[in-house]
């Protein structure tokens, strides 16, 4: 007997289904006015920099400090916002689909459960990407304007004090380096990778959690614990030096393998201080983030595949 094939229908591949579900999740979150909150938060965080200009300092020392302050505030706001959105949005989607029974109608179509999970996660990542892009553009614009102001003030100061040209140029170069540039974009990429890891953790928790609140609280707890992951790994690598038994070392190893090392993201602080993060370091960061996202997504699938809905 030949299979019935409705006109115009072709069995969609995994990619098409995942993209369809991702676009749907993105639309759902966008229509929940997530972007309104983001824009407000970004504007408040970045506008606050205008209120904190250190008027008492001379322009030669104030210039870089002002720019560092803007980067610190902006990247801090991005980190907070992206982590909260990553956890809360992911925690919301699957329980809501179960509660509203929309999951029945989706999984009653020829949709593998891994496609559903991957699509939901991708939708959140898309939201984070767009949010961070908007914040990045705003931060870069503010920095650009402020850098130009600082450079002008420094030129005026140097002219008034009669600084030699090479000293003036050195000061201006230092200020420009503290302004917008590629290292800053690398730091924003790191913020995105960290948020992506958090979203995948929230996805895993939401596959067995019974409420959005539980998922959010446990997700943020994992984020907190993740900052001690490196200490756990070091403890294991040092072995006997710590004076503990094999069981303790194994526990430390297990913790290090399954919990992301969020200290890797300290490169963001380095960028704020004006350091240039090597591309290789950024690449390793992206790879490590990718490893955790894939690990947690597969673990989510392992649980969700057996889940009775």
């Amino acid at each position, binding site marked *: *007997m030949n*299979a*019935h094939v*409705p*006109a*115009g*229908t*072709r*069995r*969609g591949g995994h990619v*098409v*289904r995942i993209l*369809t*579900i991702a676009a*749907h999740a993105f*639309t*759902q979150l966008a*229509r*929940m006015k997530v972007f309104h909150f983001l824009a407000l938060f970004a504007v408040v965080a970045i506008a606050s920099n205008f209120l904190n200009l250190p008027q008492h300092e001379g322009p030669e020392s104030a210039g870089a400090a002002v720019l560092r302050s803007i980067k610190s505030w902006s990247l801090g706001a991005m980190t907070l916002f992206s982590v909260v959105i990553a956890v809360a949005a992911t925690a919301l989607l699957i329980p809501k689909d179960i509660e*509203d*029974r*929309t999951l*029945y*109608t*989706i*999984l*009653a*179509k*020829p*949709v*593998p459960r891994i496609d559903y999970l991957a699509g939901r996660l991708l939708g959140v990542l898309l939201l984070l990407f767009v949010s961070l892009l908007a914040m990045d553009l705003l931060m870069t614009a503010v920095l650009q304007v402020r850098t130009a102001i600082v450079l002008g003030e420094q030129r005026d100061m140097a002219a008034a004090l009669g600084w030699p040209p090479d000293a003036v140029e050195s000061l201006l170069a230092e200020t420009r380096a503290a302004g917008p540039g590629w290292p800053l974009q690398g730091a924003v990429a790191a913020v995105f990778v960290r948020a992506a890891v958090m979203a995948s953790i929230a996805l895993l928790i939401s596959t067995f959690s019974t409420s959005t609140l539980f998922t959010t609280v446990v997700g943020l707890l994992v984020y907190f614990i993740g900052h001690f992951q490196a200490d756990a790994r070091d403890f294991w690598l040092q072995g006997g030096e710590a004076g503990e038994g094999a069981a303790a070392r194994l526990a430390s190893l297990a913790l290090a393998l399954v919990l992301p090392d969020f200290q890797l993201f300290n490169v963001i602080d380095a960028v704020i201080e004006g350091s240039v993060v090597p591309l290789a370091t950024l690449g390793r960061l992206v790879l490590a983030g990718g490893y955790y996202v894939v690990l947690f997504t597969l673990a989510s699938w392992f649980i969700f595949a*057996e889940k*009775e*809905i």
Partner: protein
Amino acid sequence: MSEPVPAVEIRHLVKDFHTSFRRRPLRAVDDLSLTIRAGEVYGLIGPNGSGKSTTMKALLGLVAPTSGSCRIFGKDSLKVDSRDEVGFLPENPYFHKHLTGVETLRFYGRLCGLRGRALDDRVVELLDLVGLTDAGGRRLAGYSKGMLQRIGLAQALVQEPRLVILDEPTAGVDPVGSRGIRDLILALRDRGITVFLCSHLLEQVQEVCDHVGILCGGRIVREGRLDDLISIEDQTEIVIRRAGADLVERITALVGESPGASIVRSGRPRTTLERLFLETTTGKEGGA
């Protein structure tokens, strides 16, 4: 010649649920077997908690059987490809309220592999079929319960499935909408589409179903062709239009002369409240 593949084949299905409050698992479905041939309208009826929804979920692969098997057109229902040709309308569906009717159908259509012009045409066709053409651009948050049920029916039909599973399709729908859904089920049957219906509304099941299974305590207690199940073997019904008193008297006398025969009931047959409602509110005859 081999038998055609049944649309639905459930064999010795058992489903236990483990709850934290009970030591013994709760058995929702107990050794249930049934077969639905392609093109039939099959009604599964039973009291609350009798296992109807669990049976449907097992058939759709939403829950895994504790033992036994479910097959759709010969494919194991735990496999994703068994759902290629299935449309499902859950009881009291709550679709994504942020989407419009058109967006909802496009979303489900894409999940089923529909694209481009074929998808656009299908969405227009389905909105027309369920009478939501004018409401297609509105978000579902503004839909009434009946409209939600109709958009749910449309999404179930989006990929032109050969099997449609309907869980309480007229729950919360007014009599006009309910009649529309009934007519749609009959239209699906005329097109050769198999319908597996689960409902509390026995009158509705009686109107549309060819076969019926009665579920109680997770077990099928009666099953068969509807006509066979509900006809009273030793009685015959004759309905006569414009019968005068003398004709009724003669028939009564004739029956009295026949050994063993007796008149059980006579009088004017009544219309149904549903038919009266439809004639009053829509001006159309409610149908048979």
